[in-house]
């Protein structure tokens, strides 16, 4: 049988077929952070002594709350820190850290054909490298650290072919949201999304990570993209990355359990209006007339309302979806020479991204615009620290989840690409880059008329 890329990676890692359609699947890398790791790591030590399958196959870091915001999160961080030291596990501490899905690729820990797991649902991000990377629970992660393997049901593979070219103003985030809206918020459940097509080949590695990052938001086990010259160039430019790895791709006429085709030319800058990432629409569009009442009442919106009429209270650029250097550059382009009109938080995905941004002077652009430039953290994306919302507050965010309460109890979240978030931060309401340029022209026209009157 002709195999998909996912099939090849899976087959190369199956140690044993198990009852009930399960398999024992070998994990090349286990990523561990301070929120989900401690209970499992400590229970291995308690129940199995110091035994880990192979400490060299684990990398740990502080990522969610960095630095700790209180004694409880300090204990989480310190637990991971001391555990990593005891077990001889590579560890990235506060100062040298990052969101795991940003740090792992930039330090060269992931290469094509690998299997990677982490107690974090957005581990699917690393599928951008042609790896099988997935989020799991704490106990499953402990199992992978103890025995080197996960127990998994073999997922089906859905080919998501994206043909043509994205319009100039549409980004990987817009494509990710469009994919979810197309296949449905739970349409990917039981599947791996294998992205193919000319629009995918044209994406940078960072953009591929943004796309794969949101595969979980369609319910999918993960997303995966075949490695190519873009992947090779990224890995070659990454200090610490292995030089030898094998490029893999699907067979030409591979069989897929399902296929979806999206014409990239139809992808528009989008923003979410509802309470799951599938509930989104073009920025210049309206809340759908058939929108569910529960979503509308939580978001305090009405059917048919223009999205551009929605005023915001806060803007956030960051999270494992959109906090890499390319995202910050895109946002800086919008902020340059303008001022934000709502509190705006810009949080780089890693300390390495932060330093790169500062070498390029992006931090000056953000701060000149009146935005807050922070160190790396997961931040307000999951309502834990550094920008949590109050009930009723409305935030436009480059993150990945708009569930009720996600960024704070009662808070309302609109998901969008960094450029749309930046444009909205300046406008004080949801708006696209085109809306911002139109406003600039009107302002310039008004200033000229004023000059003429004065003269």
């Amino acid at each position: 049988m002709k195999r998909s890329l996912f099939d090849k990676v899976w087959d190369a890692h199956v140690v044993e077929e198990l009852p009930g359609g399960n398999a024992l699947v070998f994990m090349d890398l286990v990523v561990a952070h301070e929120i989900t790791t401690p209970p499992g790591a400590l229970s291995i030590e308690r129940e199995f002594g110091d035994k880990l399958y192979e400490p060299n196959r684990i990398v740990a870091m502080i990522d969610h709350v960095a630095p700790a915001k209180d004694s409880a999160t300090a204990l989480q961080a310190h637990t991971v820190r001391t555990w990593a030291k005891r077990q001889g596990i590579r560890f990235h501490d506060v100062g040298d850290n990052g969101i795991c899905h940003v740090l792992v690729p930039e330090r060269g820990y992931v290469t094509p054909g690998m299997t990677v797991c982490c107690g974090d649902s957005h581990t699917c991000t690393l599928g951008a490298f042609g790896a099988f990377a997935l989020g799991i629970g704490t106990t499953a992660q402990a199992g992978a650290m103890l025995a080197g393997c996960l127990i998994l049901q073999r997922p089906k593979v859905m080919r998501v072919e994206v043909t043509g070219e994205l319009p100039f103003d549409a980004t990987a985030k817009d494509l990710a949201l469009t994919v979810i809206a197309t296949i449905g918020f739970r349409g990917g459940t039981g599947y791996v999304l294998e992205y193919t097509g000319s629009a995918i080949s044209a994406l940078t590695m960072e953009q591929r990570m943004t796309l794969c990052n949101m595969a979980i938001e369609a319910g999918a086990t993960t997303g995966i993209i075949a490695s190519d010259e873009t992947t090779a160039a990224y890995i070659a430019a990454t200090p610490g990355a292995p030089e030898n790895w094998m490029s893999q791709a699907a067979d030409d006429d591979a069989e897929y359990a399902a296929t979806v085709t999206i014409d990239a030319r139809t992808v528009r800058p989008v923003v979410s209006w509802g309470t799951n990432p599938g509930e989104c629409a073009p920025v210049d569009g309206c809340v759908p007339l058939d929108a569910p009442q529960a979503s509308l009442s939580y978001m305090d919106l009405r059917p048919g309302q223009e999205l551009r009429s929605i005023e915001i209270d806060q803007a956030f650029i960051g999270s494992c979806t959109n906090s890499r250097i390319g995202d910050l550059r895109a946002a800086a382009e919008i902020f340059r020479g303008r001022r934000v009109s709502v509190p705006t938080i810009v949080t780089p995905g890693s300390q390495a991204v932060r330093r790169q941004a500062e070498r390029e002077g992006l931090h000056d652009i953000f701060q000149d615009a009146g935005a807050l430039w922070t160190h790396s953290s997961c931040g307000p994306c999951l309502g834990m620290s550094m920008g949590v919302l109050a009930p009723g507050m409305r935030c436009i965010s480059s993150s990945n989840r708009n569930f009720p309460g996600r960024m704070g109890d009662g808070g309302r979240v609109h998901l969008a690409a960094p450029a749309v978030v930046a444009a909205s931060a300046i406008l004080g309401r949801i708006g696209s880059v085109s809306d911002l340029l139109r406003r600039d022209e009107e302002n310039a026209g008004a200033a000229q008329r004023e000059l003429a009157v004065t003269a």
Partner: protein
Amino acid sequence: MIVEGAVLAIPRANIDTDQIIPARHLTRIDAEGMGEHLFEGLPDGAALLASRPDATILVTGENFGCGSSREHAAWALTGRGFRAVIAPSFARIFLENAYTNALVPVTLPQATVDELARAQNIAIDVEAETLRADGGPPISFALDALRKHFVLGGGFLQYLNAKIPGIRAWEAAR
């Protein structure tokens, strides 16, 4: 093993892990105390739980447990005394977490789940993979043939621990 008890029905689709337990409570290094925060992310969560304080069986909607990987969602349910969740479908990671925490995940068609949502009491025979609502006729469902073992008392980590020699041999021959 019979899992029997009072039913709490929350017949809504897409109850995500942020609604089951908000991230602000993910600040412990163990699995304790999560039950106190169960459904804090649902606007009417406290009232729903108060309406059936003795409930041990949750009947709910499609795609239960979607969103983050936090096993805290399963711990919050078991910590509050829940022993089974009945839904038309589950998100993958939640389903895996349910099994490893002996929280019986029962998948049944929407129409059946709608009927069960009206039941007062449900008894689940885990070995036989059948359940009865209010003493009614048995309804069959299917559990994962391997993971059922973890619900019935077989330890998940012990199972993997026993596999290590085979895994090492596989890796050596890789």
